[in-house]
């Protein structure tokens, strides 16, 4: 085994990209960064280049026809990773515009090779490679010797131990293109537009020799550069349920009794109820109870005006740092971005309790392109969070329909380990609230429908209404005495 070649994997310096690539960038690979204009190809190249280039193993950045280098330098400077000190030290720009204009690919190849031999770069970039191709096609011979050129370039670069990136505008990945065949790696960047929203997505269509994460991965471009939101790594061996089950107190003693002694640790709990039924208050007391026992928590708020909807207890916990607040106002969120925000906050605080308030707000915060897959997204989030070992309380707005009994508007009830449902009922011209524990996986729990009210101390659970029936219909009727309601 030890006689086999070891392929070093370079850390790209782009957050999340190494995970998506399946462990980093294979050294000496010959890659293509493709996508339509404005999708972040040049930025991606620069970010990797500034992270990886050293004075001993510099980077060569060949600029061809396309974005004028002066402008590229002007705009790339805006990113935090751009370091002027590196230019002409560990990073060299080489302008090939004149050579390319002549349309002679042999001459372009000769220039590239002579620069590579002069500087022994660890990294080589050609931006934009598409213009090399187009320039060559203006010759009498429309196909020129492009396949041969690409093949030679790939061979030479690898022999000179350079990890190479060709950057090009391509619109459809189905083009039969010699570059796509020769390249070891093919990174596609896209901007997916749906209605008013735009989401950037990256796909590793090919990366020889390593298990990349399949599918489209969202990324953002901020002043720090590109950030890829890789799906959360799931722990393949989930910790088995421990017996006796350790339980978390909810901060409402009677509710703990109804749950069979509290919420089992590592469970996900859905609190479903109509607007104003006290879901957020229950969530706050869940976090406050944790803080009382020295546990930390994280709350993700997806409301338009989070500061206005917070209650005093929660605000105090956030202020004191016992609860971390994830309040991303960024538009067009993806599920992986949210999960990453949550997980980083969870690991920062070593949190054991997580609240998502509410799923309805969360759905609105997601970019429209993800809404169709909302159930799937939610399932991934719940799995990622519970496999991180935390207990999750999610609230869900439930339109009160008195004709059917539903626990969540998304058909997502099966995703969670436990469900508490809240409803309004009308009794003697009053609007009363009732609460019930519908499900606690692998645990005994109460089947009672209990009245509750909300006061300054939070949720107060009261009695059952044994002389009423049809509570779930919202308009209970008084039972005739003497009839056993079994």
């Amino acid at each position: 085994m030890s006689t086999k070649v070891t392929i070093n994997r370079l850390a790209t310096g782009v957050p999340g990209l190494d995970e998506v690539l399946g462990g980093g960038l294979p050294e000496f690979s010959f890659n293509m960064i493709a996508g339509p204009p404005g999708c972040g190809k040049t930025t991606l190249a620069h970010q990797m280049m500034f992270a990886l280039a050293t004075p001993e193993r510099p980077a060569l950045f060949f600029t061809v026809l396309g974005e004028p280098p002066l402008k590229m330098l002007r705009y790339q400077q805006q990113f935090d990773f751009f370091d002027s000190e590196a230019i002409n030290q560990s990073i060299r720009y080489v302008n090939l515009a004149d050579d390319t204009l002549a349309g002679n690919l042999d001459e372009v190849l000769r220039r590239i090779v002579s620069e590579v031999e002069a500087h022994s770069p660890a990294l080589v970039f050609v931006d934009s490679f598409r213009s090399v191709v187009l320039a060559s096609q203006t010759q009498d011979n429309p196909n020129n010797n492009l396949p041969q050129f690409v093949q030679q370039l790939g061979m030479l670069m690898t022999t000179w131990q350079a990890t190479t990136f060709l950057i090009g505008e391509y619109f459809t990945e189905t083009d039969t293109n010699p570059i796509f065949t020769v390249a070891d790696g093919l990174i596609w960047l896209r901007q997916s537009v749906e209605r008013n929203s735009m989401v950037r997505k990256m796909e590793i269509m090919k990366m020889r020799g390593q298990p990349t994460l399949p599918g489209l991965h969202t990324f953002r471009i901020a002043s720090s550069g590109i950030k890829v939101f890789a799906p959360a790594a799931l722990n393949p061996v989930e910790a088995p349920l421990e017996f006796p089950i350790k339980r978390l107190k909810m901060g409402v003693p009677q509710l703990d009794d109804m749950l069979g002694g509290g919420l089992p640790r590592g469970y996900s709990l859905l609190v479903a109820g109509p607007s104003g039924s006290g879901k957020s208050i229950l969530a706050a007391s869940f976090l406050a109870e944790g803080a009382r026992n020295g546990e930390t928590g994280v709350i993700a708020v997806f409301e338009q005006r989070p500061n206005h909807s917070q209650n005093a207890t929660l605000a105090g916990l956030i202020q004191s740092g016992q609860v971390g607040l994830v309040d991303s106002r960024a538009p067009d969120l993806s599920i992986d971005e949210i999960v990453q925000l949550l997980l980083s906050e969870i690991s920062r605080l070593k949190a054991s309790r997580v609240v998502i308030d509410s799923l309805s707000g969360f759905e609105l915060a997601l970019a429209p392109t993800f809404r169709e897959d909302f159930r799937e997204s939610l399932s991934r989030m719940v799995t990622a969070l519970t496999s991180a070992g935390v207990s999750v309380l999610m609230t869900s707005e439930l339109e009160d329909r008195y004709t059917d009994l539903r626990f969540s508007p998304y058909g997502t009830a099966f995703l969670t380990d436990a469900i508490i449902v809240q409803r309004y009922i009308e009794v003697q011209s009053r609007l009363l609230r009732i609460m019930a524990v519908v499900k606690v996986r692998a645990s005994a729990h109460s089947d009672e429908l209990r009245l509750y009210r909300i006061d300054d101390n939070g949720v107060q659970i009261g009695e059952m209404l044994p002389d009423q029936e049809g509570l779930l219909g919202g308009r209970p009727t008084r039972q005739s005495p003497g009839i056993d309601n079994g």
Partner: protein
Amino acid sequence: MSTLSEESRRIVASLAHRVGPNADIEKVAQAIVSTLQDMGAALTAIIGQQGVAALYRRSLHLSTSTHPRLAGTYDSVQSSMDLTALSSVLAEQSEADALFFGEVLLTTYYELLTTLIGPSLTARLLSGVWEPSLSDTPSQENSP
């Protein structure tokens, strides 16, 4: 602005250094042209010949429009990118006038580049030009 004036002092000092102790018009012209060549050489590798030519012409244009008294003399130069044309126009001036023009042009060139790619990168790319001992390095390095 303080860094820029520091840079322009450096440009003026470098030019004076190139001219040497006994200034005659030939030496002045030679110093200006060689400085432009070194700047061009440092930049051509990165932004290409056309990029450099565009910068040079813009600098000439800006110099003559801020200092109208230069306009009459140097208008003829603008039509061509040829440094020998500049050199022959310079040869007909007095030393003081030629030196003044050189300082204006080089400083303007530098400031123009600064507005495009920022002070630190400009300083970085052109650092070799001002170092008297290194004045030959960039052109050597960048010859293909």
